[in-house]
């Protein structure tokens, strides 16, 4: 009795909040907020419902409801034939997933984090990415490899690496990395529908974050194009490229820069391979300055590729050297203060943007 009363009270207090939300709905289409987790879960649910060939496999995706609860409820809805809990054997189950894709099924293979994908990387590259080419189009591989990528919090060196640069260098793969809930839904649906192998790099710390989504995004037919970046914030003074969690940092940096009269254009890459060179170069031709931001190791990273692309295509438009903000060139330390130094912070992006705009004196080069 008491429990029911308590529930009713909660329901009523909820109802008090709701009118505010419905008022918002009448003003803009972006009224509802969903977490990235809900976005991914609903995308998987809808794609599994639409196509019986889609199935999930990975560690703890079924009965545990997903290590990060991304696959929650899907075992109950689709049954153990379509949501498969695997033993902790990445090389084995990834190979099995790729073989199933050879036959024509559409597997979505989860890596608990992409650090564990290294145990299966031969199957991702040699068995999946290259097969369509080696077979001259006979064997296509419609598989998605998804999971959290990059640093979490306090998980140390073996659990914090970003794999965007490694996978994106490989022809035959497509590599996507969502930032917000709209990205998560649209890109995951696109990945599942795509006939090629897709590496889908999520971020553990973004799973719980909420973002507004329009009705269009919530529709089950919603899909984002692969290979197109999004301009999250327009600006005229400096271009900042980023993906995944760093998009949020870049947007915060842009707000801080605006207070100092610098208007930054923030590009959410969304797609690491194919890279939207056109959008990036068009932006740099407008702003004449570029900061690339990523969480991963700096050497041979995503920023290095973007810098090379801009130097090749838009050299005469650059008014300043391209700046790279990336993770520190060290394995990820555990101590909180060192960890903070090992990943980019908003201040780093702001500082680099000011350097590119010649608003600060650059540090003296090391002897």
């Amino acid at each position, binding site marked *: 009795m008491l429990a029911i009363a308590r529930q009713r009270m909660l329901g009523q207090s909820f109802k008090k909040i709701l009118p505010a939300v419905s008022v918002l709905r009448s003003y803009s289409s972006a009224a509802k907020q969903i977490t990235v987790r809900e976005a991914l879960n609903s995308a998987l649910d809808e794609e599994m419902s639409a196509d019986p060939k889609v199935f999930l496999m990975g560690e703890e995706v079924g009965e545990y409801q997903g290590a990060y609860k991304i696959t929650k409820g899907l075992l109950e809805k689709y049954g153990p034939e379509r949501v498969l809990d695997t033993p902790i054997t990445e090389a084995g189950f990834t190979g099995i997933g790729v073989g199933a894709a050879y*036959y024509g099924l559409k597997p979505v293979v989860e890596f608990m984090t992409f650090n564990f994908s290294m145990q299966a990387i031969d199957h991702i590259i040699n068995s999946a990415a290259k097969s369509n080419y080696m077979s001259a189009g006979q064997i296509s591989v419609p598989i998605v490899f998804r999971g959290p990528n990059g640093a979490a919090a306090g998980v140390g060196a073996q659990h914090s690496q970003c794999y965007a640069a490694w996978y994106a260098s490989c022809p035959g793969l497509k590599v996507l990395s969502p930032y917000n809930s709209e990205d998560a839904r649209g890109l995951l649906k696109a990945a599942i529908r795509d006939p090629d192998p897709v590496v889908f790099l999520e971020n553990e710390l973004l799973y719980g974050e909420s973002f507004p989504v329009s009705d269009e995004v919530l529709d089950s037919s919603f899909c984002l194009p692969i290979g197109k970046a999004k301009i999250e914030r327009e600006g005229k003074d400096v271009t900042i490229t980023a993906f995944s969690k760093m998009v949020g940092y870049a947007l915060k940096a842009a707000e801080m820069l605006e207070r100092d009269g610098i208007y930054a254009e923030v590009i959410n890459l969304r797609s690491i391979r194919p890279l939207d060179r056109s959008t990036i170069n068009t932006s740099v031709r407008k702003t004449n300055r570029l900061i690339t931001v990523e969480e991963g190791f700096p050497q041979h990273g995503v920023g290095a590729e973007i810098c090379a692309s801009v130097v090749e295509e838009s050299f005469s438009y650059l008014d300043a050297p391209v700046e790279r903000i990336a993770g520190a060139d060290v394995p990820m330390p555990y101590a909180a203060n060192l960890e903070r130094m090992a990943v980019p912070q908003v201040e780093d992006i702001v500082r680099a943007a000011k350097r590119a705009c010649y608003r600060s004196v650059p540090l003296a080069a090391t002897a």
Partner: protein
Amino acid sequence: MALSHLAASASRSSSLLKPLSSALSLRRPISGDNSPLTVETSVPFTSHQCEAPSRSVETNPKELLTFFRDMALMRRMEIAADSLYKAKLIRGFCHLYDGQEAVAVGMEAAITKKDCIITAYRDHCTFVSRGGTLLEVFAELMGRQAGCSKGKGGSMHFYKKDSNFYGGHGIVGAQVPLGCGLAFAQKYSKDETVTFALYGDGAANQGQLFEALNISALWDLPAILVCENNHYGMGTAEWRAAKSPAYYKRGDYVPGLKVDGMDALAVKQACKFAKEHALKNGPIILEMDTYRYHGHSMSDPGSTYRTRDEISGVRQERDPIERIRKLILSHDLATEKELKDVEKEVRKEVDDAIAQAKESPMPEPSELFTNVYAKGLGVESFGADRKEVRATLP
């Protein structure tokens, strides 16, 4: 080998000779008929965790003559590839299968084209047994347009999806989890078919094999793991690489069968048994005791780690083609001359295919950029000098 039905065969042979002689005058290949024949395998099967099938194999003259012709074709094809490689028309890797033909031919006789086969890089003969043509083989080896992978794959990457042949893989052991994945998909699709995933004694020690076997056993997948044990992993003899070279037992809880891989009928019986088993009970391992006459590849003479006596000994005692020849002759299914004529025909077929393959052009330069993706999305790709060579992926 035991010869049953001698009396029956005498009467059969008299009825056989009539059509054969008329066939010869028209220069049609001898084909035999479907009248049943029972032959015993060279040795009984040895089993692990299961009951071995009978060593009496049902066959018929047509099948035996087909075995002879197919194996002779494969033998001739591989030897011709050896010459082409030495003439530098084939580059890179070339792993030859001569000696092991009975495995490809016996397996095919037990299954349908709806069952899947996946193997490693010693794949030329398996491709042919799945319906690939000699032209496709030689053109692919020489990197020409008429090749089965349009010249873009090479020796190790032959595929024929329309008859469920999934390659052709260069990374040792990788094909085994892939094969278990094919079996998974067959079960998921309720196709009532099985997958044969072939691997060598060298690959048998790969960890991913045991990972895939574990999952296959847990999920009851219709996967048949076939160890083509030719006793050498490249230059390393099996006893130097495996603590336990009883590969048919290495599945532990997964049943296994040891088979004389030089006896096409034993191979056929084992594969038939394995298919029935896999559809009902999940994975099973077949160890084919076989032998390759060539070295590991064309870069390996194959005689630094084996004696020439061993190689010639196997050729004399256990050659798969000679076994079938003796069987055919002893059952009076054809004469020696007829069989020699088959070998001549086959040789001509191979020579004609090579001539035709040599006529096939190399791929167009634009083919560098095709098939990178199934759906290229109009994305740009680049040559070595990206300011000079760019392409849009379709």
